[in-house]
C-alpha cells in the first residue's frame, strides 16, 4: 500500500470532474477560481492543460489522468489552485460541491493501477463514491508523464534530425 496517512475527520474539498467524484484536503487548497484563458503548451501530454496567469504568477494547469483520456473537456469550467513543492499549481475540475468532513479509508489499490500514487484513499459522501487524492503524488505523476513524453519527443526529434 502506497497511500499517505491522513487525519480522520479532516475537511476535504469535494468536487466532480469527468462524471467522478473526487476530494482533496481543504488545507492544501489555496483558492477556487473560474477557468481562465489557458496558454496551450505544444507537444505536451494531455495531463497538462496549459499555463495561466493568476494572481500575478504563472501557474501550470493540470487535469486528472482519467480526465485526460476523454475527448471533450468543455465542462471544465473551474479550477482548484493548490500549494505545491515548487510553488502553486492548478487542477481543472467541472464543479465544486463544498467543504465536507470525510472518513478516509486507505484502500485505493486496484482502482487506479496507472496512477495509484495520486490516490490517497476512498470515502462515501451522500451515497457517492469519492476518491481522495494526494496532491503531491498527483503533481509528481503528472511531472513524470510530461518528462517521459518530452524525452521521447527529443529522442524522436534527434533521430529525425540525424
Amino acid at each position, binding site marked *: 500500500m502506497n497511500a499517505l496517512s491522513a487525519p480522520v475527520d479532516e475537511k476535504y474539498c469535494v468536487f466532480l470532474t469527468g462524471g467522478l467524484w473526487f476530494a482533496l484536503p481543504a*488545507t492544501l487548497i489555496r483558492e*477556487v477560481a473560474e477557468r481562465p484563458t489557458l496558454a496551450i503548451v505544444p507537444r505536451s501530454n494531455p495531463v497538462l492543460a496549459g499555463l495561466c496567469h493568476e494572481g500575478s504568477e504563472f501557474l501550470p494547469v493540470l487535469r486528472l489522468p482519467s480526465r485526460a483520456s476523454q475527448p471533450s473537456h468543455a465542462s471544465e469550467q473551474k479550477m482548484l489552485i493548490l500549494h505545491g513543492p515548487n510553488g502553486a499549481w492548478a487542477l481543472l475540475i467541472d464543479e465544486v460541491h*463544498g467543504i465536507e468532513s470525510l472518513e478516509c479509508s486507505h484502500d485505493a489499490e486496484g482502482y487506479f493501477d496507472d496512477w495509484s500514487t495520486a490516490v490517497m484513499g476512498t470515502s462515501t459522501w451522500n451515497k457517492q463514491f469519492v476518491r481522495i487524492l494526494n496532491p503531491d503524488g498527483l503533481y509528481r505523476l503528472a511531472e513524470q508523464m510530461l518528462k517521459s513524453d518530452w524525452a521521447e519527443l527529443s529522442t524522436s526529434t534527434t533521430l529525425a534530425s540525424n
Partner: protein
Amino acid sequence: MTIRQLLILSHVLVAFVAAGIAGLSPIANSSSALVYAVVCTTALSMATGWWCASQIRRGLRLIENAIADGERLKGDSEFHKTAANLYAHVQRWVDSAATGRQQMREVEAVLASVDRQGTEHGEPHNASRQLRLVLASVGREAHETLKQLITCNGEIYQIGQKLSEGAQQQSDTAVKATRDIERLSEDIGTIEKTSTQTQQAVKAARETAVQAVEIVSQLRAGMECIREEVTVGETKVRLLREHALEIGALARTITEVCAKTDMLALNASIESVRAGEHGRGFAVVADEIRKLAGQVANSAREVEDRITSIESEMDETYKIMSSERAGIDAEAEHVESLGCSLVAIQHSTDQMQEHLKKVEQASQNQLRRTSDIVTFLENVLAVADAGRGNSEETRWKTKTLTELIVRLTDVLEPLLLSAQNQPTTHASSSGASGASARSGERNTQPAAKAAKSFEQMVVS
C-alpha cells in the same frame, strides 16, 4: 188632312157621282152621258186607288228607313215610335182596304145598274164592258205593284235577318270582349297591387340598406379603433419583450453574481478550514452565504426560465397580433367593399322604386282606360241588343205585311179573272138579252168574292 177625312170625302164624291148617274140615266136617254158618268166614277176610283198605293209605298219606305236606321236607334222610345208609325200605316191601309171594298161594292152596283139600263134600252152594254176592262187594267197594275211589294218585302225580311244575325254576333263579341277586358282589368289590378307591395318591399330594403350602410360605417370606425389598439398592443408587447430581455439579462447577472458569491463563500470556507478553530464561526457564515447564494441562483435561474418562457410567449403574442393586424387590414378592405356594395344597392333600390312608381301609375292609367272601354262596350252591347230587338220586330212586321200583301193579291185576283172572262161574256150577251142578265149575275160573283176576301183580310 187625315186619312179618315179623305176617305169620307171620296165616299161622298162616289155617292154624288152615282146619284148623278142615276138621275141622268132616265133624262139623258143616251149612252154617251152614261159613259161619261161611268168614266168619271172610274177616274175617281183610280185616283182613290192611286192614293192608297202611294200611302202603302210611303209606309214601306218608312219601314225601310226604320230598318236602315236600326243601328242608330237608341232606346225603347224610338223603337216604340217606329212601331207606332208602322201600326198607324197598317191601320191606314186597313181603312183604305175597307174604303176600297166599299167602293168596289158601289162600282159593282153601278155596273149592275148600267147593265140593267142598257138591257132596258136595247143597247149593247159596251160601257159596262169598257168599265170592266178599265177595272181589270187597274187590278193588273195593282197586282204587279203588290208583286213588287212582296219582292221588296222579302228582301227587307232577309236584310232584317242578316241585321239580326250581325247584331247577335256583335252582341256575343261585345260580351266576350267585355269579359276579356274585365279579366284584363283584374290582371292590371293584380299588377298594381303587386307593384305596390314590391314598392313597399323595395322601400323596406332601401331602409335596411341605409341602416346597413350606417352599421358598416360604425363597423369601419370600430375596426379602425381595433386596428389602432392592436398597433398599440403590438408596440407594448414589443416593449414588454424588451423589458423581459432586460430582466433576463439581470437574472443572468444575478446568476453570475451568485456563482461568484458561491465561489467566494467556498474560498471563505477553505480559509476558515485553514484557520482551524478560529475560523469555525466564519465557516458557518460562509456556508450560510453559500446556501443563500445557491437559493438566489436557483431563484434567478427560475426567473431566467420564466423570462425565457415569457419571451417565447411574447414572441408568439407579437406574431399573433401582427397576424391580427393583417387580418384586420384585410377585413377593413372587405368592409370597405361591403360599404360600396351597400351604397350601390341603395342607389339600385332608389332606381327600382322610381320604376315601380312609373309602373303603378301606368297600371292605374290602364285600369282607368279599361274601365272606359268596358263602359263603351256596355253601350255597344246595349245598342246591339236594341238593334237585334228592332230587327226581330222588323222581321215579324215584314212577315205580317207580306201576309197582308198576299191576301190583298188574293183580293185583287177576282178583278183579273173578271177581266179575263169579259170577252166570252160579251160574245154571249150580244146574242140574247136574257143571257146578258145571267152574264151580269156571273160577273158580279168575282166582285162579291173579292169583297168577301178583302173583308176577311181586314178582320184578320
